């Protein structure tokens, strides 16, 4: 009797496992299968009932065996159901496939203006060299704009700037250099500042805008030389343009620096070979600079015997136009959004 029950159990087990592995069960037949084996009248349920009639010696071993089979089958059923569900879901997922090439739900993309962005960038570059940003008003007194910068009234150098006057003694600042004076009046040497800002000249044609931007640099210490100025501006130019950009200083004249220089960079268009944009010279002028004139130091009561300094001024529009190949300054202030969105 017990032998036959064990054999029966083994047979049911084999049948059940074969069926479970056969891959023929679907959502409804798996339920029927469960009922067939594990239901109240199921084959395994029946076996478990039959075990009750076994002798007490045979019962525990047989019971354990039957429970093992029951567990095995139940787990097999679970596996099949999980697999059926997985299949069903992947089928559904594929049915929900969309045309992903349809246009996105776009947002308007904001852009900073090239000039303000560049001012921020240049300020960042110089802040790495220990320069702080100095400021001054756009409506400026003649004193700060000219007199204190070694350009007294009726000095021929005043002709270098076509000036907008508000009153006889106030102007729209023609350069950012007044910030040098304002800063030195308030702070002691040594100091390093840059001063980005809006400046104005009475000049309006294809290549000039009556309003434009400059960035001024001033470095005063006990040892500053033209060589330091060269090193400083070279470092900047090679960060702003490219690491291989060559730089040259060329003698020039500004009343507030002596010696004075124009700073040229290797032409960004022809890489110094000579083209129409650099007038075949291979160089492009980007800044005026020089050693701070002793008269400027005297105006702010710095001791000219103890210090020296260098200063430079760059046109931001010029830098921007060269770097981004913008042919016309007017594009910067026309505010055509098709232009603004390019940068």
């Amino acid at each position, binding site marked *: 009797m017990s032998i036959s029950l064990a054999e029966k159990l083994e047979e049911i087990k084999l049948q059940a496992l074969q069926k479970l592995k056969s891959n023929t069960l679907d959502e409804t037949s798996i339920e029927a299968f469960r009922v067939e084996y594990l239901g109240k009248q199921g084959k395994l349920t029946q076996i478990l009932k039959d075990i009750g009639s076994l002798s007490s010696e045979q019962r525990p071993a047989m019971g354990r065996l039957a429970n093992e089979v029951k567990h095995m089958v139940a787990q097999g059923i679970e596996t099949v159901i999980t697999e059926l569900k997985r299949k069903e879901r992947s089928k559904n997922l594929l049915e929900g496939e969309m045309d992903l090439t*349809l246009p996105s*739900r*776009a*947002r*308007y993309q*904001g*852009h*900073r*203006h090239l000039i*303000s962005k560049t001012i*921020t960038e240049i300020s960042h570059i110089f802040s790495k060299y220990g320069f*702080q*940003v100095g*400021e001054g*008003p*756009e*409506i400026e007194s003649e004193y700060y704009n000219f007199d204190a910068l070694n350009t007294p009234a009726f000095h*021929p*150098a005043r002709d270098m700037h076509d000036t*907008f*006057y*508000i*009153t006889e003694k106030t102007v729209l600042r023609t350069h950012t250099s007044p910030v040098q004076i304002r800063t030195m009046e308030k*702070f*002691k040497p*040594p*100091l*390093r*500042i840059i001063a980005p800002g809006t400046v*104005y000249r*009475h000049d*309006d044609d294809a290549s000039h805008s*009556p*309003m434009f931007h400059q960035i001024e640099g001033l*470095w005063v210490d006990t040892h*500053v*030389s*033209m*060589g*330091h100025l*060269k*090193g*400083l501006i070279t470092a900047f130019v090679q960060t702003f343009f490219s690491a291989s950009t060559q*730089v*040259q*200083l*060329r*003698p*020039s*004249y500004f009343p507030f620096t*002596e*010696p004075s220089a124009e700073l040229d960079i290797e032409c960004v268009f022809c890489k110094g070979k000579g083209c129409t944009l650099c007038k075949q*010279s291979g160089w492009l002028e980007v800044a005026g600079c020089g*050693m701070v*004139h002793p008269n400027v130091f005297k105006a702010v009561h710095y001791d000219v015997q103890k210090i020296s300094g260098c200063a430079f001024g760059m046109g931001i529009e010029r830098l921007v136009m060269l770097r981004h190949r913008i042919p016309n300054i007017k594009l*910067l*202030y026309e*505010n*055509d959004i098709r232009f*603004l969105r390019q940068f």
Partner: protein
Amino acid sequence: MFIDSAWLKQYVSLPKDFGLLSKKLTQAGFEITSLSKPELDTTYLRIAKIIASKPHPNADRLTLCQVETQDGKFQIVCGAKNFKVGDHGILATPGAVLPNGMVIQETHIRGEHSQGMLCSEKELGLKEAQGILILSADADVSQNVRTVLGLEEVVFELQVTPNRPDAMSHIGVAREISAIFHKPLKLPRPKFSVSKGKTALSVKVIVQDSKKCPRYMGCLIQNIQIGPSPVWLVKRLKAVGLRSINNVVDVTNYVLMEYGQPIHAFDADRIQNHTILVRSAKEGETLNTLDEQTRKLESSDLVIADIQGPIGLAGMMGGKDSEVSLQTKNIFIESAYFDPVTIRKTSKRLGLHSEASRRFEKGVDIEAISAALERVTELILQVAGGTVQEKALDDYPKKFKRKEVELTQAKLDLYLGNVFTLAQAKKTLETLGFKTLQFSSQKLRVQVPGFRIDVTQEVDLIEEVARLLGYDKIPAQEPTGHLQLSQKIEKDHSLEESLKTFLTGVGFLEVIHPSFCSPEDLIKLKWNTPTVAISNPIGLDTSRLRPTLLIGLLKTLHFNMNRQEKDLMLYEMRPVFFPPQGQRSMLTGVVCGNRMPSHWGEKDQKFDFFDLKAIVEGLFETTKIKTQKLKFHETAPAYYHPGIQGNIILQNKFLGSLGQLHPEVQEAFHLKEDVFIFEIDIDLLRSDLGQGTFFKPLPKYPFVRRDISFLVPKSVTHSDISKVIWSAGDPMITDVELFDLYLGTQVKSGYKSLAYRLTYHLLERTLTDAEVQKIHEQISKALQKECNAEIR
């Protein structure tokens, strides 16, 4: 100034390669800004002698010429008539391409063989001229075409910086070149003889103001012959852009361009009493100057006068009455030094800028006045005849003392890095005309030549040394030195940066407009407070400084709408200006069109006030100012829509405004879309920023949400309601959210239906149902009482 290389060569030899000259001058601080060099391919051009000519057998207007060149004899059919046998011209032989594109070929014209073309100056691209070019009589067929046509010479424009008036002449430039290339300088040595014998005429000069005129020289030349100038003189002047007038005037201009010393010639017989007074003008005096303008003079002006009144405006322009004319027989030549500031003041006031004033106002070489005068005298005697019977007069009471300047090795090293020695400096300065007075290894003392008025102190010498030895010799150095971290120079601009970052994030484009506007713009904007005016504007449209950023923004909206861009979000953050000379930083934004780019899945929606409000609230959120603290009320400026506008108020302080643009203003600026604007005063906002943000504990206990819906009279605002809810719900209420608003016909007239979702929460524990119920009822009662709400 224009420099003619042929002229320059008289004083210094030039390098063969013009490129080298240009480079070296540039490196020494004189930039060549333009160059006119005759570009002409002369490969197929020959000098041709016309050896025979006869009429063309088949054409009345043509001539058949036999010409001879270094390559042989040719037959040419010619259309011009301005030549004779024996003349030399330029023959373009087959293969030549002329500047006008004409290709020369061997051809037959009306049956006659033509082996080239005799060219006119126009055809050679040299100048406008009729007929073929006839070369000077001494031309020869073996000569180089380029030399004969003067193609090897160039005229260049040199940019002379305002500190270098000494270089505003050919001799001045030659002096620089001589120093740069170490070539000797050859200066003219004027020679003329002073006639003996009694003079019938004599001019007396009385300098009354020797401060304004420290040196005055003059020379009388009698019995001159006014007439046209010789060709060489005309050519020289023309090359540098001056028109020939007559031989005397031309010589004065020639010497001006040669020495840089302005010279004036008076008709000596027009000087009353033959006495010249150099004096300050009398207030209200007038002078009719050479350009036939009547100049009203002031006492600060310096005039050359005779007993009757001014005959010349010193250093600027002569008077019409004493002008040298065809009838002039005797002339008085003036060569003087006038005070630069005096000249500049008058020149600026009168708007009168001449070649003379441009030099005097910067300072001429007071020592070279005599040399220039001698040169003029020599040349006038040469080209206009006449006699000089007296030595030149020279009123020079206080002799110019040359400056002495010291240069130390220490300063040279400090300024230029340790690259140049004093010995090098000494040599360099000497080539520039400085005289060494004292020299040791540590100190150099030099005397500055009279023409270098710009050199007054040590740094000026340093520049001279660096300029001539080469800026490229100064090695770049690492910018080492002291930081100045203890000095807080920089102001905090993180506010501006964070606002810009926010606006960029929500889709705004930043714009920048020039700071100008026009009175008309202000009227269009209904702007009615005073603005800052520019006293010398470029035009009326840019005659004011903008008091608001809005004008530029509205114009830019219009500009872009005209380019089919209608959905726009723009802002500008820049200063605006207010009288008398104030400026403050503003942030102004405008939006119009669709609030989102069109999308296939959604309907387009236009921007409205609530989009704008969200942007403004977002802006304040980035500055850590809670939006609940902001109030939007009071009256915004007149350019706002009267029904859709408000000022932004934080704790009774005005920070800006927002709203819709007034439809009338919208129309005035030709804008087809409704425009919503916000303006925030950045300077005011900055002053309201707190010290920082500090952590608040995160809630540990769950919150409870309850909805409440009710009817209220239409006049009750959301703001009124939330105020009531917040105060009745204190301290448990943490959020009040309006989630439904209905104004339609389903509610009784005069009322609106609102539904709010209220969030209750306590930091320290979970709220009980009973507590929530109680507070919710309190709120409900408060709404009934204070807002006439009918709870639903």
